């Protein structure tokens, strides 16, 4: 029984950080292959069916042959280091990239089996179906009421004032803002707190009855309490909408999403159930990113 000191010896082997060569344990899935995504990128009866999507900014290719399904009433989070293409890819889903002249999109992008990039498609109608919430709250410099009523008005969703009132109240309720603002609907929206402004923008997006809501880092300008409220809202909204969220907060992705997609240098590296991604991801790069090993 000569084992007394030997464990102490093995201590010294572990003094270097992560001295244990983990790559020996997980030999596969360490390299990115174009067009290959590890995990489960496809679902049955998807809301979005996206195949071999490429996005170019002039000569440079920002998105490299990405294929992905986004399910109905699913919350999917896009994560990855800055410049990995997650926001670019998100903006393809309601053609927000159209406004950038040098930007071109290739591949098959289908929303409910209809081509998003069909030249005959009405982009305004598309964006009513696929709403968007941005990083910084961007309310119009109008009253709270008018901010929410703006979309329904231009889309002709309400014929009478009372209908419009109903839409505004319903949207503000769904955005968890009604009780805070019901007595001051005429006040200007820019006077609200940041968190309230962001929830107002969500109410504005909801007001036109979209099917999908795209969120591009919706909480990065908010404090933890406002963030918690928006996250709570995402959970509630997922019952009626498909939600795609780009986030730099890994914890946020872990908290709010059903599936998580990891982007890297314009590739979609891994898509998996969020619970799996944050406990035992399939791809080394995903692991390195979520554990904070490179940036």
């Amino acid at each position, binding site marked *: *029984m000569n*084992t*007394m*000191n*030997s*464990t*102490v010896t*093995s*201590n010294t*082997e*572990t*003094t*270097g*950080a*992560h001295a*244990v*060569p*983990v*790559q020996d*344990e997980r030999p596969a899935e*360490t390299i990115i292959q174009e067009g290959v995504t590890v995990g489960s990128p496809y679902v049955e009866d998807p809301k979005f069916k996206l195949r071999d999507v490429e996005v170019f900014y002039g000569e440079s290719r920002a998105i490299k042959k990405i294929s992905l399904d986004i399910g109905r009433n699913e919350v999917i989070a896009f994560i990855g*280091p800055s410049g990995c293409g997650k926001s670019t890819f998100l903006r393809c889903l309601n053609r927000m990239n159209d406004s950038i002249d040098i930007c071109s999109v290739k591949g098959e992008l289908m929303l409910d089996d209809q081509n998003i990039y069909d030249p005959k498609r009405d982009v305004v109608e598309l964006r009513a179906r696929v709403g968007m919430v941005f990083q910084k709250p961007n309310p119009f410099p109008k009253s709270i009421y008018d901010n929410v009523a703006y979309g329904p008005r231009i889309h002709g969703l309400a014929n009478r004032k009372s209908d419009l009132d109903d839409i505004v109240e319903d949207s503000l309720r769904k955005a968890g803002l009604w009780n805070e603002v019901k007595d001051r609907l005429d006040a200007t929206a820019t006077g609200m707190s940041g968190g309230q402004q962001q929830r107002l923008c969500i109410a504005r997006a909801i007001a036109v009855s979209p099917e999908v809501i795209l969120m591009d880092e919706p909480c990065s300008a908010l404090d933890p309490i406002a963030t918690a409220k928006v996250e709570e809202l995402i959970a509630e909204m997922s019952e009626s909408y498909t939600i795609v969220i780009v986030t730099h907060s*890994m*914890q946020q992705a*872990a908290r709010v999403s059903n599936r998580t997609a990891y982007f890297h*240098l314009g590739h979609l590296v891994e898509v998996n159930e969020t619970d799996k991604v*944050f*406990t*035992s*991801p399939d791809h*080394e*790069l*995903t*692991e*390195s990113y*979520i*554990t*904070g*090993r*490179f*940036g």
Partner: protein
Amino acid sequence: MPNKKDDVYGDHISARFNDELNELKTQFLNMGGMVESQVEQAIQALVESDGQLAEKVRLGDKQVDKMELDLDEEAILVIARRQPTARDLRLVISVIKMVADLERVGDEAKKIAKMAIKLTEEGQAPRGYVEIRHIGSHVLSMLHDALDAFARLDSEQALRIMKQDKQVDEEYQAAARALLTFMMEDTRNISRCMSVMWVLRALERIGDHACNIAEHVIFMAKGEDIRHSPMEDAERVVAR
């Protein structure tokens, strides 16, 4: 952006996070070393009727308990500060659970030491000592290998440890049967044989704890929880 291998497999951006995880691993291995020596000395005290050594082991358990508290605190702080994910998360959670196993091994060592004191006071009871030496050396090597597998994140070694558990169980059963025959031969043997039986039981439990640690090592390395699963599942996971 990483294109070198080192960038992909390298350390955390936060060097202090590395330090904290390292500290956790080192503390765990220190506690493992301490517990190992407790078991070793308890067995030695018993078979050599060394009451003083047994007393030392009995007192040493307090230090094991303190190490458990310190490690748990360290692990809680890492979670609070870093919100670890993936393999880091698996390390922290596994350490929290394995610490409980080590502490129980420490308790078993203390039990053996108490029996050593009792048996020494009552005079020699050579019956069953061969078995105690044999099983003791077996479970000690399992415990040592389990800590080694943890240090090297070696799931294959962990699997080998799990496979030894059945053998220990069989050795324990055989020893228990032998002791039973001694007790039936002469009822005056019963008290001492029962004490020896308790020691054997403690050793068998130490083997179980070593297996628990091995299961956690596989979880840490492979990300799959193979507890309460058939051995074939564990083999499949490790072979991946």
